[in-house]
């Protein structure tokens, strides 16, 4: 089990320490400050039992001389006041120990923000293949749970985690030093059980982690089961499958009873240790210290100080093995972040920005473009050599092979074809989100990579099949943070046949949508995304199957309005609806990685079998 765990991590411990250290380097002042606070608060804490010792010893000797009549009540009282002041001074301990965690927390949060931005930027620069490997939910987990501060994630570990370990270690260190200074023989005896305790803790921690993981898996299995059963309730009910489902759930629960008992028992062991193990050292002191006091080689105050020290050591002692476990988690998180960083690296390296600015998109051409989707093996293993035509083994079929065509400014081109014929891929190749394996996409005769990205992207509008809606107002969603005028936004919404619906919302354009706002229907989302694309005043509009969002009448209106207000706009429309295709100047029929035919509706109906087939025969 242990070996497996080691294997889980991709690098040596030193690698991770170095990784964290690199993140720390810019913050070295903070590190020094935190170290300073650590030692300061530790030293004050360690002085406390010394004060207690002093109090008791003073009391005992004071009492003796008082009883012997060598001191007066007056002197004893001033002695007492002096001791009280000393105690008060010890109050600095709690004060410092309160400042310290605050600075740690601040540092945690700084790291959290830094990591999130750094890796989100990384995601933003990834190619589409990256998103085949990493699902949204997974990425979100990596950018939130993995790096968060509380409950402990990477950021916590990078600061609080490390400094708490440092703090614990320094408490143990200074306590042992102090005990040795007080009475080295008794210190030796008192510290004898410490390594054994540490060993037991580590053992306990490891098995707890494993058992806990098992129980967690049981829980998520249970949740999956419930999710499927509750959302598929109609099927379960209509197939009379209630009893069989109950039986399955029962089996699942039986399995979990065992897991839960194991977790709770182990947790209980911890509790027992918390409550009783710290007395093991105390017993040693109780016996040997007691004997020493009786023999007169130890004062009562020192005897008591030893109890205090042992009480102080116990929690740090438990903390350190816990740190080891959480540190392993940090390493796993680092691995997961790096996974993300390394995936599809090649794409990012190729994705350099061009230098040429363009004023207009006059023409768009595909010149001998070939493209194939990456195999899963390739995605899992980015170290494999890049796909090349010379390597025919384990290749996906070509999405496109030597595809060539040209579209000129102002043309409306429809793209039709069966599922998997590459319609969406074609749009992605144009927008530059995907890159051809061979051949090139050119704008105004210039290869796309040579053009400055922003200057090209400012001029295109992309309407996705499944539009993304942000949890902001409708206005912001349409504006897409471009800071356009209200007039433009409204007129684009009108164009997208969306305005009438916006007016039905209580807040109109300011109505929030998404997570905490109104829910938009699929059609409304798409109409919104049409408006969003238009607000950028695009010259090239890429529309991926927007038929669902508009009925025929509204669609017709959209085309008319678009022609009127954006006369010279170039449109590429992926569609299943023949009525849409009919409106285009030209229709491209895709099949088997190439263009099967190009032409108008009537021409294609006459000449193209696939097209006839697609248009319901």
């Amino acid at each position, binding site marked *: 089990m242990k070996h497996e765990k080691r294997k889980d991590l991709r690098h040596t411990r030193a690698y991770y320490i170095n990784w964290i250290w690199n993140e720390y380097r810019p913050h070295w002042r903070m590190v020094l400050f935190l170290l300073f606070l650590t030692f300061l608060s530790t030293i004050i804490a360690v002085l406390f039992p010394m004060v207690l010792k002093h109090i008791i010893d003073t009391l005992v000797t004071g009492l003796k001389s008082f009883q012997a009549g060598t001191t007066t009540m007056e002197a004893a009282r001033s002695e007492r006041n002096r001791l009280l002041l000393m105690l008060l001074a010890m109050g600095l301990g709690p004060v410092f120990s309160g400042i310290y965690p605050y600075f740690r927390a601040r540092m945690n949060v700084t790291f959290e923000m830094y990591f999130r931005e750094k890796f989100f930027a990384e995601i933003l620069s990834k190619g589409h293949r990256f998103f085949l490997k990493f699902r949204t939910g997974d990425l979100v987990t990596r950018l939130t749970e993995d790096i968060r501060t509380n409950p402990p994630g990477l950021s916590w570990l990078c600061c609080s985690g490390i400094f708490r370990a440092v703090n614990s270690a320094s408490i143990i260190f200074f306590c042992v030093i102090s005990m040795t200074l007080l009475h080295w023989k008794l210190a030796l005896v008192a510290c004898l059980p410490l390594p054994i305790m540490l060993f037991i803790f580590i053992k306990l921690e490891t098995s707890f982690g494993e058992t806990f993981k098992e129980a967690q898996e049981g829980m998520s299995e249970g949740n999956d089961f419930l999710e499927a059963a509750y959302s598929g309730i109609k099927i379960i009910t209509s*197939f009379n499958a209630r009893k069989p489902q109950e039986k399955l759930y029962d089996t699942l629960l039986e399995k979990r009873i065992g897991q839960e008992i194991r977790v709770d028992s182990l947790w209980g062991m911890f509790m027992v240790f918390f409550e009783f193990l710290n007395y093991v050292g105390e017993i040693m002191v109780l016996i040997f210290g007691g004997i020493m006091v009786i023999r007169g080689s130890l004062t009562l105050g020192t005897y008591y100080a030893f109890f205090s020290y042992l009480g102080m050591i116990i929690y740090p002692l438990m903390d350190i093995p816990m740190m080891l476990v959480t540190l392993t988690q940090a390493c796993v998180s680092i691995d997961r972040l790096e996974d993300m960083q390394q995936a599809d690296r090649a794409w990012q390296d190729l994705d350099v920005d061009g230098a040429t600015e363009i004023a207009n998109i006059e023409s768009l051409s595909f010149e001998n473009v070939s493209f194939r989707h990456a195999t899963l093996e390739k995605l899992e293993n980015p170290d494999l050599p890049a796909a090349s035509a010379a390597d025919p083994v384990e290749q996906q079929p070509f999405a496109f092979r030597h595809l060539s065509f040209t579209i000129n400014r102002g043309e409306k081109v429809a793209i039709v074809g069966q599922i998997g014929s590459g319609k969406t891929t074609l749009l992605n190749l144009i927008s530059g989100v995907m890159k051809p394996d061979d051949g090139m996409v050119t704008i105004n005769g210039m290869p796309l990579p040579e053009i400055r990205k922003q200057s090209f992207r400012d001029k295109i509008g992309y309407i996705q099949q499944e539009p993304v809606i942000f949890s902001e107002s409708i206005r912001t969603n349409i504006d897409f943070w471009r800071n356009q005028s209200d007039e433009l936004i409204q007129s684009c919404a009108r164009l997208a046949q969306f305005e009438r619906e916006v007016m039905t919302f209580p807040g109109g354009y300011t109505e929030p949508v998404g997570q905490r706002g109104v829910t938009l229907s699929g059609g409304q989302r798409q109409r919104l995304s049409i408006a969003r694309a238009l607000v950028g005043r695009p010259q090239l509009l890429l529309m991926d199957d927007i038929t669902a969002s508009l009925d025929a009448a509204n669609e017709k209106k959209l085309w008319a309005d678009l022609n009127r207000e954006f006369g010279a706009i170039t449109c590429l429309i992926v569609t299943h609806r023949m009525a849409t295709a009919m409106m285009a100047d030209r229709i491209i029929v895709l099949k088997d990685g190439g263009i099967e035919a190009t032409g108008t509706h009537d021409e294609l109906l006459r000449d193209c079998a696939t097209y006839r087939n697609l248009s319901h025969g």
Partner: protein
Amino acid sequence: MLINNSKSVLKRILPYFRPHLASLGVALLTMIVVTGVHLIRPMILRTIIDTAIPAKDVEMALRYAGFFIGCLVFGAIAMYVRVKIMARIGAEVVAEIKRRLFSHILGQGMRFFDQHQTGKLITRSESDANQLKSMFTQSTAQLVASVMLIVGTIFVLMREDTRVGLVAMLSLVVVGLVMFFYLTYIRTLYTKVREKNSALTGYLAEYIQGVPLIKVHGRENDIMNNLRAHSQEKAQLECKAAFIEYTLFSSAFRFCTEIGVLMLLFAYCSSQVYAGTMSVGTLVMFMELLRQFFRPLEFLIEVLAQLQSALAAGVRVFDILDTEPAVKDSGEPVSGLRLQNGIAFNDVSFAYDSEIVLKNATFAIPRGQQLAIVGASGSGKTTCINLLLRFYDPTEGSITVDGRDIRTISLADWRRNIALVLQEIYLFPGTIMENLKAFHTDVDDETVIKAAKELGAHDFIMRQSHGYQTVLAERGANLSYGERQLLSYTRAMVKNPDLLILDEATSSVDVITERELQASMEKLMLGRTSIVIAHRLVTIRKADRILVFEKGHLQQSGDHQTLMTQEGIYRELVNIQMAGKAESHQIVEAEPLIEAGTDEPAGAVA
């Protein structure tokens, strides 16, 4: 209000613990032992200091030390026993609660599922049940132990010195109150942090989903700025919480309970010691007792908060267990029920709460016919099949099978004769075989394989890594939409029903894939009575009869040819879907097209 509920929660949950009463008694006993050990430890210390040391009696000291060791071992064993007992009781009780919840929820009618989201139901069945468990096995145990220790400590202090005892009691009350208010405050602060956090998670998910869109439009910088702003909001709140928790409260609290209390104690006791009314050992004992005095208080207040939320969870759990199914299974068993003549809707109306969704629908489905239902979303077409399957019962009118009201037939016997195929395909955790059998173990494999072969699902099933025994990924995510659709047809075929209900798969399936599915669907419908909820009108032209619904009313009925000759919704719908000739249509929007799922592979754009 909560208190009333809480009481009833306690009353309700106790029966679950009845089988474990003896074990609970033992657990209580062990708690007393543990408390005793904690109290006896400082006393032993005092005895050693006050008697063994002055007498210089090593043997006596050793005897006490031995006694102390004995106590510790005894206490540790007692505590471990308690933990073991509580772990077992807790796990068994929670399993029982979960079992009942699941069974009860599955037995509810569809109305219940309309009112409760799946996510909420999972929370009820899982974490709320867990909370109830931890309330009894951990919180209550912790509570009892803490109270015992506090009471015990005060008792010992009082016995030794009434004044010390009284001061301790007073400080306990003060500290307790302060802590209570502080914890209430800080908890709301952390709730805000959590809210900010989940908002941030939400934004992040949206941004990540939007990456292609953001990139295509070159909006990267703005999105980065948004993310930073959201991050910062959360970070600031977190820092504030940390400042209040650590720098303000924690240091003040520790100052008072560690230093302040000790100063008070010492100021008072030192004069007592000098006056000879108190021994040094007693002072040490007091110091030790106070060191462990405030810790249970912290636990106590934490536990009270846990109890509060556990009770709330309990209220939710029992609310569900108290919900009576809206559809009563009061019919009699009819074994071997077959459809003889047909099914009839007799003046059927149905309303959710006050919203009427189906009004006076009367129509018949003769045996062996194919009926199609058409209409915009919300027109009442889905309601018809929901009523037929008795997911709901009509508010008025009746549905009869061969003249017999379906409410007089037991649910299981009635549903045995119907198979349902939904446009969204639900597959469950388990193997393909189990899913095709709908988890009924009395169906043999041959029946399943025969059905799969007939519908053309066999080949792709055999291509899976373990054939029929392949375990499905989450909802069959490792299969294409077409394949999942075929599985759902096969599942219906295996049931071999007289009546088939199909919620037709829709729009964005390309024509060729759709035709393949259509062929399988027709095989499935062969020789059965069937009802199809249609979204694409081309697929239902062959139906024996088409019902057109609008806003809960049955507007038109007849076959395709008849309806096309009539002025009405159907013809307009057909026209819209065919070529878009209608200029504008106020009555029927293209909603049926929208509600459909799409069939493009999920990763195509993302």
